Every structure is written in structure tokens, then in C-alpha cells.
């Protein structure tokens, strides 16, 4: 399986007046062709920073790439020039974000925005289509996302649509391009749970049909369970665990993953655990060794001084914890 995305040892920080926020501390991530990978982490863990780094949309004055590489099909995104990145964004990478109201331009109709994107992406593949063909293609794309009454929606403004519909428009926009890699940053967090379920199932179908690789970023474990094959758990700027989704859920190894799984209220009704004590570290002065150490029940002396690398536990399973140093 060809490697589409390969993030190697990414270090990203932000210079603010109080000092330097050392957010991403050696992020490692791979995504192969046709794969569906989840990235789970809580508020402040750096997952959005990671996505923005991949898309190269970080505001560069406060942000600084302090090290590492992001390879897309073996070419380092971080070293690409402006024009290369733009081509990449038009033809290969696409994204959907948490708040569709912010991703859609409020003063243009859905039709106008969708047509723009379809026209642009078809332009890269060299085809010239008439206005009618483009519109038909747009309506098709909307239908594919399960949008009711797509013809009417084309002439609506984003503000007139419900949250679920807006997200469907964003998905239509994202998937009507020739893109091979979809980055979905909290795509359903703002939606009602019944709508979320529909959208996720639809996304599942579409991604299968179009053979697009997906990286789903979310704080909700439940969302990634069905949708992904492989999963990363992120904490305070590093990957702490990686593995096949099923296996990870069945047997989380990293103390943070274990705490996280335990914290989720279960339908089986066994009560709610007290969560994980403590807070995420202060990025201005993060711990020198393992960043989870201050909150960890199993902390050992070495955890304070050295940062644990991702140890290979078994086939495809990696855990960044000295408990598993073999």
C-alpha cells in the first residue's frame, strides 16, 4: 500500500509574548492509500495544529515549524513553494471543518460556491464543461451526500440551511474534487446526534465509493469506532498510542488511552469513572520527559527525564510509554 501522508517528528510552536508555546512535540503519523485513520485527542492536544500544518495554513508569524517533515507522496510539504502547495490543495488535498457556517461564504448561494469548486477542480483535469454540465455535476454531488431536494438547495444561502445540511454541502464540496486525501476536523461535533449518525454513515459510503483516504480528527471516541481502521491517540502534542481501531478499543495500552476509555459514559450503565486527574501541561514550560507523567499512575523516574518514543509492541501497535519498553 502506497504511503500517501507521512508526518515525521513534527515540532511546531507558537511565539507569544509570554514566551514560546511548544505545542507539537514530535508528531508521527502515516496514512496509506485507501486507508481510514482516526486521530483522537482532547482540547488543546494539538490535533488542529497538526491539520493546519499539513494544509500549511498556520499563521506563520506566531507559529514556527521547529523541526520535522510532512511528506505527501514522498515530497516534503513543508519545503514546497507557494505554487506547489496551491496545486496540492486544489487537486490532492481537501478538508472539512467543524463549523460549516464558517467554512461557507455567507453571501453566496450554495450553488455559486459549489459551481466554483467543481469548475476549478475539473479545470485541473483538463476538461472544459458547459455551465449546465457543471450545475448537473453539482446537483449530483449534493444528492450523493443524501441532501433532500438538491435543486432547491442550490439557490439557498448557507444561513437558510440547518447545520446538518450545511455540513453536507461542505462534504459535497470536498468530495467533488479530484482529491485523494480528505482531512476531516471534527466534522460532526456541532451536529445533533441523529444527524451526526446520518452524516457519518454517508461519509463512510462516499469515501468507499470514491476510494478517498481519510484522516478524521475528533475528540469523540465513539465517532471513530465504526469509521476508521487505524487510530492514533494524541496527548499534549505527541502521539501516545497507535493501532488498529478494534484492537485499541478492546485493549488500550497507554495509561492516557486507558483513562480516556474509562471516562466515556457507557450504555451498559456501569457508572462513570472520575476521569483523569490533573490538567494538560502548560506549553510554555512543558515537562522535559513524558508529557503525561504528572498525571500518570504508573510514573517511573525515567518518565520525568526522557521522552518515550513510540515503542513497537506488536504488529502495527505502537505505544509511547516506558511501561512497554521491551
Amino acid at each position, binding site marked *: 500500500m502506497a504511503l500517501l501522508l507521512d508526518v515525521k517528528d513534527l515540532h511546531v510552536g507558537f511565539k507569544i509574548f509570554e514566551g514560546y508555546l511548544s505545542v507539537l512535540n514530535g508528531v508521527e503519523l502515516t496514512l496509506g492509500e485507501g486507508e481510514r485513520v482516526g486521530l483522537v485527542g482532547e482540547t488543546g492536544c494539538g490535533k488542529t495544529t497538526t491539520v493546519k500544518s499539513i494544509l500549511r495554513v498556520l499563521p506563520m508569524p506566531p507559529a514556527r515549524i521547529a523541526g520535522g517533515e510532512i511528506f505527501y507522496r514522498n515530497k516534503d510539504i513543508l519545503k514546497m513553494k507557494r505554487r506547489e502547495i496551491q496545486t496540492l490543495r486544489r487537486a490532492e488535498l481537501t478538508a472539512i471543518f467543524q463549523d460549516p457556517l464558517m467554512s461557507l461564504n455567507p453571501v453566496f448561494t450554495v450553488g455559486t460556491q459549489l459551481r466554483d469548486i467543481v469548475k476549478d477542480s475539473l479545470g485541473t483535469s483538463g476538461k472544459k464543461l458547459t455551465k449546465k454540465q457543471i450545475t448537473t455535476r453539482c446537483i449530483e454531488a449534493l444528492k450523493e451526500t443524501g441532501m433532500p431536494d438538491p435543486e432547491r438547495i442550490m439557490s439557498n444561502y448557507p444561513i437558510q440551511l440547518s447545520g446538518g445540511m450545511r455540513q453536507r454541502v461542505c462534504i459535497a464540496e470536498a468530495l467533488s474534487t479530484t482529491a485523494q486525501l480528505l482531512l476531516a476536523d471534527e466534522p460532526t461535533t456541532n451536529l445533533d*446526534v441523529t444527524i451526526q449518525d446520518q452524516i457519518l454513515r454517508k461519509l463512510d459510503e462516499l469515501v468507499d465509493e470514491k476510494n478517498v483516504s481519510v484522516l478524521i480528527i475528533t475528540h469523540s471516541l*465513539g465517532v471513530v*469506532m465504526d469509521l476508521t481502521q487505524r487510530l492514533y491517540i494524541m496527548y499534549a502534542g505527541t502521539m501516545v498510542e497507535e493501532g488498529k481501531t478494534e484492537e485499541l478499543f478492546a485493549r488500550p495500552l497507554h495509561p492516557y488511552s486507558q483513562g*480516556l476509555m474509562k471516562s466515556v459514559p457507557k450504555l451498559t450503565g456501569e457508572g*462513570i469513572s472520575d476521569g483523569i486527574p490533573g490538567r494538560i501541561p502548560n506549553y510554555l514550560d512543558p515537562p522535559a520527559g513524558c508529557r503525561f507523567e504528572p498525571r500518570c499512575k504508573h510514573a517511573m523516574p525515567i518518565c520525568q527525564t526522557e521522552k518515550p518514543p513510540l515503542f513497537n509492541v506488536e504488529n502495527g501497535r505502537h505505544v509511547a510509554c516506558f511501561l512497554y519498553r521491551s
Partner: protein
Amino acid sequence: MSDTILAVDNLKKYFPTKRGTVKAVDNISFSVATGETIGLVGESGSGKTTTAQCVIGIYPPTDGEILFKGQTISEAFSKRSKALKRDIRIVFQDPGSSLNPKRSIKQILSVPLNVHRMTTNKDHLVMIKNLLDMVELPADEYMYKYPQAIGGGEKQMVAIARALATNPSMVLLDEPTSALDVSVQGKIINLLMRLGKELDLTYLFITHDLSLMRNVASRVAIMYLGKLCEIAPTVEFFQNPTHPYTKMLLSSIPVVSVEEKALKPTKITSRGEIPSPVNVPPGCSFHSRCPEKMDICTQIDPTMVEIGEGHVTRCHLYQGTKVAASIEQEEGVHAQDPVDQSNSNS
């Protein structure tokens, strides 16, 4: 049997707007027993928040009655007595905006204490320390901090301390942990439950998270577009959901284990969009999405029917079972009255 502390009778709250009347709450009835935690669950437009707002007095009801400890309280807070304001309290969803960013924790906690003259000058500080101790926040450190300096979970704990500062009987919790990370949520929920037992509090717990409800509530009530769909004791609710919307909701929950997956209903999956509350479909408001829709559903709105111990549901599929029996019992008076909940318990 516990007493009924809160009874909501045929509550309606309509908001007239330019595009039509928003029927946020449309004729709901339920009651809450002292000491229980009732979960009010629903999605956008369900009316769960508006219901809580009517109970706490942010809005006066358009119609219907709210009875607290036997007294009518169906009016806006400006007309309510101070004693009432002390007795029912609320914790809001967004900790970021429920604490005044320009006031210190000490000042924030002083407000309810001062308004209700709960302390003398001598023990004012002691009282504040006690409140912070109660929510397990180190008092000396936190008293002088400002909200921006503490985390979301801690802010919510301050909000809880503030709500409990007046020794209330009932606390409304409007999605208290929805804005928080799951690793922080547990501590707060467990704190609420523990304090609830210690102080004999009744909770009206509003959320959209059914997995949370499963572990917290003694009874669950589901709302859709301003109406109640189903009310049942928690275990019964999850084992034997009857209303199609309930089943749809349950089947949509994202779960993290195979055991939980097995508990979800599989035959009904979510479909359709939630209609706007300005444009509620006629008959049963859920019919536009219901996979078990019958002809009668598009014309007549079903009434609440009891189908088990403390378990009521509002669906034509179950109308036949009890309506006939009730009609016989009440000699020709059509069984439109809401079922009395005062005898039901967890």
C-alpha cells in the same frame, strides 16, 4: 414513595416571530419526585432548554402551569419571591460565559450569599471557603483567581458551588458537561451525584448525551419538537424503548465497545432532517421521519399512554393498548389527561 416536588401541567411556551409562531414547548406534562434525577433529553428544537427556562423563570409560560412544592410558580423571575429564587437554581452549559470574567471567584460566590443574606460579616469568608471545599477546589488558591485563569472543568465546579450556595431543593442542570472534555466530565458528574445524595437535591438534568443519562438519571424523558415522546425509568427506558424517535436516538449514539453496540436498537436508523419549530408537521410531529408511520399519524396527534410501570409513550402504535381501558374507567371522559407521575420512582 417520595413527594412530587415539581409538577408541569400542559405547559406551553410559544414565541411569536416574523416567520410564524415558534412552538418551543407545546403542551407537555410530567412531574418530578423529591430526590430523583430526571433526565430531559432532546436534540435541537426539542424544547428541553425552554422547558428549563420556564421552570427557573426566565420566561413566563404561554399556557399551562408549573407547580413547585404544591405552589404555582408559573411566572417570570421578576415576579417570583426571593425564597423561590433561593430554592430552585440552575447551572448553565457554557462555563466560559456563566462566570463574569471581571470578577474574582470570591466575588462571584459572594453574590448569592449576599442577596439572600446567608452569612454575617463574620463568617462570610468561611462560607466561601466551605463552598469551594465542597466542590473540592483548594480554597486559598482559588478564591482570588479570575475565571480566565482556571480550566473549564474547574469553572463548572465554581458554577455548581454558586448554585448550591443558597441550599436549594432543586437544581436545573442545562448540559453541564457538554462543553467539557470527557476526561474532565466524570469528576464533575460524580461530584454532582454525591452532593445530590448528601444534600437531598432533586436534579432536572438536561442533555443530549444518552450514554451519560444511562449512568446518572433515575428517569428519562425524551422531547421532540416541543412535545414529550416517552418517559420511563432509566433501566426500563434502555431495555424497552417504545417510541420510534427514542429508538432512532438510541441507534445513533456513538459507542465505544462491542457490548454497548449490542444494546443499541438496530432496526431503526436515523433518517430525515429535524423540521424547524416554526413549521411543525401536522398530526404527530415525528411522522415525516418515522419508519413506522401510519395514515393516522399525519392527521391526529397521539396522546400519552401508560404502557408499563411509570412508562409512558406518545405514539399511535401504542394507542390501542390503554386508551380503551382508560375510557372505560373514566366513563366517557376521553383520556386526554396526562398520566400522574407522582407514584413513579427509579
